[in-house]
């Protein structure tokens, strides 16, 4: 039996051997109705995504222009572009990944390659799972307490990197572990049989084959960090700054925070609506673009893996 056949879900025989009775027809109808309801659920989920994206595209597309993307906000943020926000968001999310990636990959290597099932592993896993469940606003307060105040970094890019870095850690650990799981055990055995040590095996054999999967994970991590708002509102982002960031201790503007501020604060909420839509559209294009890329990359990897 091939792997495909084992993995596939068994489906019932299409035709029953016995004579079809009235009761069978009732059972068939019931099943048809139930499956229709399931299809309905899928349609609702797909429609929700389509409606959200659709409305943002329809209302936001007219705001997008070369000037909007490359100019700085003017006139109390009621005119001009969002260039500083784009720069800020890219800086924050890439830096967060620089923090989370080494820690996350190393943690995953320990959990998957070294740790034996037991209490230590169980506790570390519980820690990772719970970290994944911490609300983002709590990460924000934590960043405010530790990085901004106690470590005296101020509201800065660096404080944002560290806060977003620990927020993304569980994402990186999860996707890296998945990548490590997909490396066949025979690769490791072959390396060990040739006299390689455990570390040599991991460094020269396991990691290179897991690399594309880890790459996928880090793209997902970056997109998670790019869309995060509550964690940066006390640690890195400000609603307006006239200067572009020039050091890691500068505060920055960021796309998600820009949307929030323009949509909720100030006296010009209606007037800046086009800017809000435009910013939201740029943000989802960035985030969904990265996600789509990761999904396609993963599908390609899986196809390559089964061949």
């Amino acid at each position: 039996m091939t792997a495909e056949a084992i993995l596939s879900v068994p489906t019932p025989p299409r035709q029953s051997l016995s004579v079809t009775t009235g009761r069978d027809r009732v059972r068939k109808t019931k099943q048809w109705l139930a499956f229709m309801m399931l299809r309905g659920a899928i349609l609702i989920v797909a429609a929700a995504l389509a409606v959200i994206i659709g409305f943002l595209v329809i209302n936001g597309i007219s705001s997008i222009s070369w000037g909007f993307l490359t100019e700085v906000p003017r006139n109390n943020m009621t005119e001009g572009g969002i260039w500083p926000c784009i720069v800020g968001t890219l800086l924050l999310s890439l830096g967060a990944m620089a923090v989370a990636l080494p820690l996350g990959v190393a943690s995953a290597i320990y959990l998957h390659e070294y740790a034996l099932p037991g209490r230590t592993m169980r506790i570390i896993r519980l820690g990772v799972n719970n970290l994944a469940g911490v609300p983002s606003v709590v990460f924000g307060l934590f960043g405010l307490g530790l990085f901004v105040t106690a470590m005296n970094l101020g509201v800065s890019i660096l404080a944002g990197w560290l806060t977003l870095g620990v927020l993304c850690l569980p994402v990186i650990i999860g996707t890296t572990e998945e990548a490590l799981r997909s490396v066949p055990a025979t690769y490791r055995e072959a390396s060990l049989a040739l006299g390689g040590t455990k570390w040599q095996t991991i460094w020269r054999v396991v990691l290179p084959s897991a690399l594309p999967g880890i790459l996928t994970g880090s793209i997902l991590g970056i997109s998670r960090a790019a869309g995060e708002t509550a964690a940066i509102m006390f640690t890195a982002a400000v609603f307006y700054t006239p200067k572009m960031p020039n050091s890691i201790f500068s505060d920055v503007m960021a796309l998600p925070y820009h949307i929030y501020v323009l949509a909720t604060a100030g006296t010009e909420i209606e007037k800046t609506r086009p800017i809000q839509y435009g910013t939201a559209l740029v943000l989802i294009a960035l985030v969904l673009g990265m996600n789509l890329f990761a999904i396609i990359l993963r599908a390609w990897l899986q196809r390559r893996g089964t061949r």
Partner: protein
Amino acid sequence: MRRSTKEIIIKQAFLATAITSLAVLALIMIFLFMEGLPTFSFVSVKDFLFGVDWYPTDEANPAYGILPLIVASGAVTALSSLLAIPLGVMTAVYLAEIASPRLRAVVKPVVEMLASLPSVVIGFFGMVIMAPFLQDYFGIAVGLNLSNAALMLAFMSVPTIASVSEDAIYAVPRDLKEASFALGATHLETLARVTLPAALSGIGTAVILGMSRAIGETMVVLMVAGGAAVIPNSLWSPVRPMPASIAAEMAEAPFRGHHYHALFATAMVLFMVTLLFNILADYFSHKHQQSGSASL
């Protein structure tokens, strides 16, 4: 010998890194408590948790009772779960059991994209599109309210519930289903009487994780829930769940003043609730793990 010493050092270094997550979790707790516990020097635990008045900025007579915020968080989460649990579980069943591989390749990314939508974008959608729609359609005074927030939150927890449930349904041993088919059961009967009961603990985990996500979600409730710190009396009441209160007021609260400490104490409560949910989810998934047909 040198090679093995090096190996041991490397292993210990990896262990040390793996502990980072635990250390961060511990640090989060320490900082929340450090900044939150001073609250109880000016308000008793009982008055804090069960006080119905939240007027932290009142000059003459500030009140720090977070019961309205707790009730709001509970109401929003419960209402969103009513929508998200059936939708999420049904999506999972469809993906795991019924969709053809080709359809699955389309639907699964849709669910993942929904999961990846930034919360501020969903909040924005709820504010500028859903709220006016609800006002016009139902003729209510304010579109930013409990129901709108619950609806937006539901779309955020559906992907979590769906993907964790789907894994659980996949993990049901194939021979159980085959036995059911062999007895002449239809696909639906097999699903309802064999597959879903066997996957129940995993689905339970999924539901708890989805609710935990909803209760901690900040931007959506900050932008859409309406912001009134009173105990809701209808589904259309504007409310102020805990994360919204923290995010909205932190910027204005004087550093290390009473208000500041009270917000950290609110975050403590929020953190404890999500921690409890996550430990519960972990307990479920380990305690009732379906390891094979033998344990049925």
